[in-house]
């Protein structure tokens, strides 16, 4: 199948075009070795179809940040060459958009130039000579507007008949005999490819080892100043673009009066912040109040499903595995979907509308004090949903040190996985919901979020003093004109993000619940197999209710899981936890949200399914096996809250940090540092409050 890629500046409507061309035939994968999303989709063109890849938006082929490197690597990929490039340009900013396009043309890869947002030309007073543009670059030019549904069919027809060879002959000259020696290497196609290889070290790994050696030996013999040469290249390109635009484009002075008026309010020195915090407040309100309705239904549904299946299926081990491990496990994943969807929905709306760049603009100076960057605000907010996409969102921060700091402190933010743990612990700690006219549980929850944010800021201040890493990158961001967000894009984002969450996190959670169930259902030695006998000797047999529970408790204590929990009990008893909580904490190192499910399984293994008690009721009744007092006292619960706020308990996050920082050093420091703080904090909390 033919492989096409979509390239363009940021904020040109590239994603809308990708969504319109591929519909729901999309999949996200990862590029090997890095975690930048590789968005792929199939475009059907009547009888044939082609693979379309959406690349991150960039202003030039010279990468300034990690995500821009992807564009270069995909384009220069010699092993899987691309068949054609679809270049998306915004009609309102054709001059800048043609800069990257002129670089693309010099690659001599067949391309189609799409001039998007064509519906705006009347309002902007633009006249564009499509034919002249097409003649100059010797490629088809299609005018489109996704909002008005203009030009999509024409684009599809053009793609169908796209040539296999580029008609454009690059006029790019190296003017340097040393560089010209690189033409000897076969996989380097023309002078412009040489130029990219000379200036972009990250492109070298695309070549075979032998070629890499040759490239490096040639380049080591010559000295040059990349930055100056690249600036000259840029100035030359703009000179020819300006010449071309004289004949192609007629345009009045651009006046974004509507955007300016909005900006006056949104970036105002008081209202700007007020509005930003109001929006944050709205998002959190939505996560809690809106999401709680579907979450309650999901919770009840899976509880009932468990009971129903247990009664319907024949009573055996498989039944127990399904009802005690699988169904609660899957339920534990699905219950997050409403919260994740709401959060990603808001972030998608803020990004699409162009507001996110304004937040970056007004927050940059504030964040810089902590060693971060205005752009860190997006990862930090996303961190409230999940650290994984949040850490990936840090890749557009060009400054290496600020990017590293962002990656290191994002896991302090209260992610959605902590939410169910917090919810249940807070409910245990503060039984009554209202008091003094407030929702006290809600207040405590808000404090936990505040704690997450404050600790990430404090961590960042400390780390910025400790880490010595220089970066010359300059902070430059575009403030695009405001756009009305498109529902279609919103739906796409929601579907892909939720899908990847359910399947990626789901795999771990389901696996952990099955392992836990197996460990809890089997045990070594006679104490486990002959539990009934042991219990009969101690308890009044006539009281069947206590009898069953006692057998179950005895079995659990003597199962593999029980021994595991008891093994770590000495380590966690200073924090006030017993072995059952210990098991929950151990399991949580796979993913935090496993805690609730684990507690549910531990307290339901063996006990009668028909009672259909909720997890909260089970926990409230839990008793410390040695003292007989309730396990979850105020001090224990608070200590657990603190532990979960700080501990780095997420295998996926560790893996992402490893890939994004390209070393084991940072994830290891992060994991031990955070878990150490958690242990200390929980110890202090328990000591003070008990």
């Amino acid at each position: 199948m033919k492989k096409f890629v979509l390239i363009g500046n940021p904020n040109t409507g590239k994603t809308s075009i990708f969504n319109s061309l591929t519909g729901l035939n999309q999949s996200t994968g990862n590029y090997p070795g890095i975690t930048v999303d590789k968005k792929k989709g199939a475009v059907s063109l009547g009888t044939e179809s082609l693979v379309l890849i959406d690349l991150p938006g960039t202003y030039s082929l010279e990468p300034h940040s990690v995500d821009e490197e992807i564009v270069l690597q995909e384009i220069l990929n010699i092993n899987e060459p691309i068949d054609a490039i679809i270049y998306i340009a915004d009609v309102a900013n054709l001059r800048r958009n043609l800069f990257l396009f002129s670089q693309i043309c010099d690659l001599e890869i067949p391309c189609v130039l799409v001039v998007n947002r064509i519906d705006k030309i009347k309002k902007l007073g633009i006249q564009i000579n499509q034919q002249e543009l097409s003649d100059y670059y010797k490629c088809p030019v299609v005018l489109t507007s996704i909002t008005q549904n203009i030009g999509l069919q024409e684009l599809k027809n053009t793609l169908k008949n796209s040539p296999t060879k580029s008609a454009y002959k690059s006029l790019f000259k190296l003017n340097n005999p040393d560089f010209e020696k690189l033409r000897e290497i076969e996989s380097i196609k023309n002078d412009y490819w040489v130029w990219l290889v000379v200036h972009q070290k990250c492109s070298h790994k695309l070549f075979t080892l032998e070629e890499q050696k040759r490239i490096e030996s040639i380049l080591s013999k010559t000295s040059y100043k990349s930055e100056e040469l690249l600036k000259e290249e840029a100035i030359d390109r703009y000179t020819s673009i300006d010449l071309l635009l004289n004949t192609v484009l007629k345009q009045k002075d651009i006046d974004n009066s509507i955007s300016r008026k909005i900006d006056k309010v949104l970036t105002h020195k008081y209202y700007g912040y007020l509005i930003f915090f109001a929006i944050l407040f709205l998002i959190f309100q939505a996560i809690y109040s809106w999401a709680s309705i579907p979450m309650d239904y999901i919770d009840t549904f899976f509880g009932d499903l468990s009971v129903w299946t247990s009664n319907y299926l024949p009573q055996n081990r498989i039944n127990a595995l399904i009802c005690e491990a699988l169904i609660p496990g899957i339920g534990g994943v699905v219950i997050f979907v409403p919260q994740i969807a709401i959060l990603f929905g808001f972030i998608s709306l803020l990004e699409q509308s162009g507001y996110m760049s304004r937040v970056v603009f007004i927050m940059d100076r504030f964040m810089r004090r902590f060693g971060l960057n205005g752009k860190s605000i997006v990862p930090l907010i996303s961190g409230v949903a999940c650290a994984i996409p949040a850490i990936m969102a840090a890749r557009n921060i060009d400054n290496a040190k600020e990017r590293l700091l962002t990656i290191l402190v994002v896991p302090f933010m209260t992610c959605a996985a902590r939410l169910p743990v917090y919810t249940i612990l807070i409910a245990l700690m503060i039984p009554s919901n209202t008091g003094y006219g407030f929702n006290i549980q809600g207040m405590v929850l808000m404090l936990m979020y505040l704690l997450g944010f404050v600790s990430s800021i404090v961590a960042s201040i400390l780390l910025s003093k400790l880490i010595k890493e220089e970066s010359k990158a300059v902070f430059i961001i575009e403030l695009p004109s405001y756009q009305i967000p498109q529902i279609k894009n919103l739906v796409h984002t929601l579907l892909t993000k939720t899908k990847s969450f359910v399947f990626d996190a789901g795999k771990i959670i389901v696996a952990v619940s099955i392992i836990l169930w197996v460990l809890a259902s089997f045990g070594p030695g006679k104490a486990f197999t002959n539990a009934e006998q042991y219990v009969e000797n101690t308890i009044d047999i006539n009281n069947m209710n206590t009898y069953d529970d006692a057998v179950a408790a005895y079995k659990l204590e003597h199962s593999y899981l029980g021994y595991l929990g008891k093994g770590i009990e000495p380590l966690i008893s200073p924090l006030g936890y017993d072995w059952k909580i210990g098991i929950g904490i151990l399991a949580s190192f796979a993913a935090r949200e496993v805690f609730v499910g684990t507690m549910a399984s531990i307290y339901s293994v063996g006990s009668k399914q028909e009672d259909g008690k909720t997890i909260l009721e089970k926990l409230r009744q839990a008793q410390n096996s040695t003292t007989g007092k309730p396990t979850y006292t105020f001090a224990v619960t608070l200590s657990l809250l603190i532990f979960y706020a700080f501990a780095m308990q997420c295998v996926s996050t560790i893996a992402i940090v490893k890939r994004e920082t390209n070393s084991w050093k940072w994830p290891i420091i992060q994991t031990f540092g955070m878990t150490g703080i958690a242990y200390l904090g929980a110890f202090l909390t328990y000591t003070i409050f008990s």
Partner: protein
Amino acid sequence: MTLFIFLFNLNKLICSMQNHRTIADLNLDETAIIAGDQQENIPLKLIQMGCTSNTKIRLRMKAPSSDPLCIQFGGNDIALRLEDAKKIAIESV
């Protein structure tokens, strides 16, 4: 004597630097052009976005404490930090 000449020259240099206005000195909505021969002071990314010597720019917005600044050139609204804006000299139109 050499020290004196050195100090004198240094003083002259500082004076001439003060005479040059930079992007950081622009008033809100004031228009100016980037001074000629500024290539080495303009960050590569900005040049690649089309802001070169002799480009007409306009100061559009200031974040609180005047940092960062938002300049407009052509169809671009670009934000940059004060420290970088201070390096780019401008001429009035």
